[in-house]
């Protein structure tokens, strides 16, 4: 019995998430989901644990604050900058610089983290990917035994799939 791929497209993430939940409950084959937008509903349905990117952002944020403190305190001591007779190390203006550097480095770490963890850039397309899944459609590609194909297809249709295509694994689209 051969494995085949079933490619289905959905018009919205609610229906797509419903299909994912049903597929997971029925434990039929493994599947990939394509989404043109980040969707909480699909994330919940897939049940993936939280992304480690947030720890990278935290690390970036903390290094930003430390950099900010080093720059502000370091330069005022190095140059003895006296502004209006105020103490050399005065926290109110330093907060602004620390805050901005926290946002900047946190953002950069987060951006690079996303690229790194998602393996972007890449030249390969995941099997079953369709250009529409980067446009206005959500897609689920299920790989399963041929014997289960009927069940999977009816399940997808029930969940509100617009279009269901069956393909041999050997010839990815």
């Amino acid at each position, binding site marked *: 019995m051969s494995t085949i791929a079933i490619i289905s497209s959905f018009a919205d993430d609610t229906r797509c998430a419903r299909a994912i*939940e049903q597929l997971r409950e029925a434990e039929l084959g493994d599947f990939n989901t394509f989404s043109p937008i980040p969707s909480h509903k699909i994330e919940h*349905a897939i049940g993936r644990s939280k992304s480690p990117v947030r720890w990278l952002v935290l690390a970036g944020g903390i290094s930003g604050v430390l950099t900010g403190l080093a720059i502000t305190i370091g330069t005022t001591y190095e140059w003895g900058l006296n502004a*209006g007779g105020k103490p050399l190390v005065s926290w*109110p*203006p330093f*907060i*602004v610089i620390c805050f901005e550097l926290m946002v900047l480095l946190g953002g950069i770490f987060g951006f690079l983290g996303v690229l790194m963890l998602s393996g972007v850039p890449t030249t390969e397309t995941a099997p079953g990917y369709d250009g529409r899944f980067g446009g206005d459609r959500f897609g689920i590609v299920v790989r399963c035994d041929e014997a289960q194909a009927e069940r999977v297809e009816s399940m997808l249709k029930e969940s509100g799939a617009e279009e269901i295509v069956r393909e041999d694994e050997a010839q990815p689209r």
Partner: protein
Amino acid sequence: MSSNLQLAHRKRAATKPQAVESVAGATMKAAAGAMIVLGAIAFVVALSRGGAAIAWEAYLVNLLFFLGVAQGAVVASSSFYLTQAKWGGSTPYRLGEAFAPFLWVGFFLFFGLYFGRSLIFPWVTHPIAQKAAWLNTPFLFARDGIALGAMAVASFAFIRVSRGDGARAWTIATDEIELPPHSIRVLAPVVAVLFAAVYSLIAFDLVMSLAPVWRSTLFGWYFFAGCFWSGVTAMALTAVVLRGRLGENNLFTNPTVMHDLGKMVFAFSVFWIYLLFAQYIVIWYGDLPVETFFIVQRVHHMPWSPLSVACVVLIWLIPFTLLMSVRAKKTPVILGTVSALGLAGMWLERYVLVVPSLSLDAIPFGATQFLISIGFLGAFLLSAVPGLNRVAQAATSGEPVGDDAE
């Protein structure tokens, strides 16, 4: 929460609506009535026994605080329309509108200040020549009276439409009805914009003019952002309290709804500290005595500095640290405690804004202020009774909750 569970929750809620006659019934009315009587007695006793200054300060602090809560919550409801919020069906709207009757109470209590004007407003006894055109008794009471009256009229016009069938149908329809009724789309922005204008004016007239030489352009914004936050916080606290009193399947047992309320409390607490800091740093940099004295007195001088620090802790530090995680926002005990502490912090903030301008050194806080505050709280609760029953009705109706309840 997976949408499966959510669906199950909705189905359960839809099949088993629980009848709620009244969450705020005779006991609450009697208690609130007793609180008002206590407050009134304390006020009269203080006036007749030489504590007039203390009594009027407490009167003003409480008027500002409770008026801010009531109005802030109505503006929260109007801002839900502006952002097309459907995360809790019609309940968050009813929650925001619940305290509105106090707007009229506050409107009438405002004119009570007329009798204490010489004790509250320093410029009544020592007029400032350059500012006399603005800071004089008839003009102040006329413009603020008109402003508060207009605010109350606009708020009630908004609430009337918001409680109507058209607006309600929109709040509970997931996607059939695209926009709320036209009248709401006019009245919601009117309420929001008027709020910014009127409460800036109130901040300038009833808080800033107590130290008539001091000025901060941002102060009005800072003040009404605090009002808005206290309204949102009161809504969250009410939701937590009602959650335990409305039986099994009320809307507030839905963790996503509590999460959304928690997000509001978290976000606008950060906004408050942002505005506080934005004012602070400009005054710090400029270092002009005419601006710094207001801050120095409150931040560096006893007995006010610990109170100022307490405000920042209660309004920003505690909500920011405790409500950061999703789980904490969804835990009613945490959200309720943070909200209650936040409201206490907001009351204290009004106190620290008003009282140091009038009584320089000592913290005149004793039985008189406490009882007057209790009296205002009683009036606030009594005026909220019908609104709270509406909230209970909406939260237990089992109506569908919008699709974007995430």
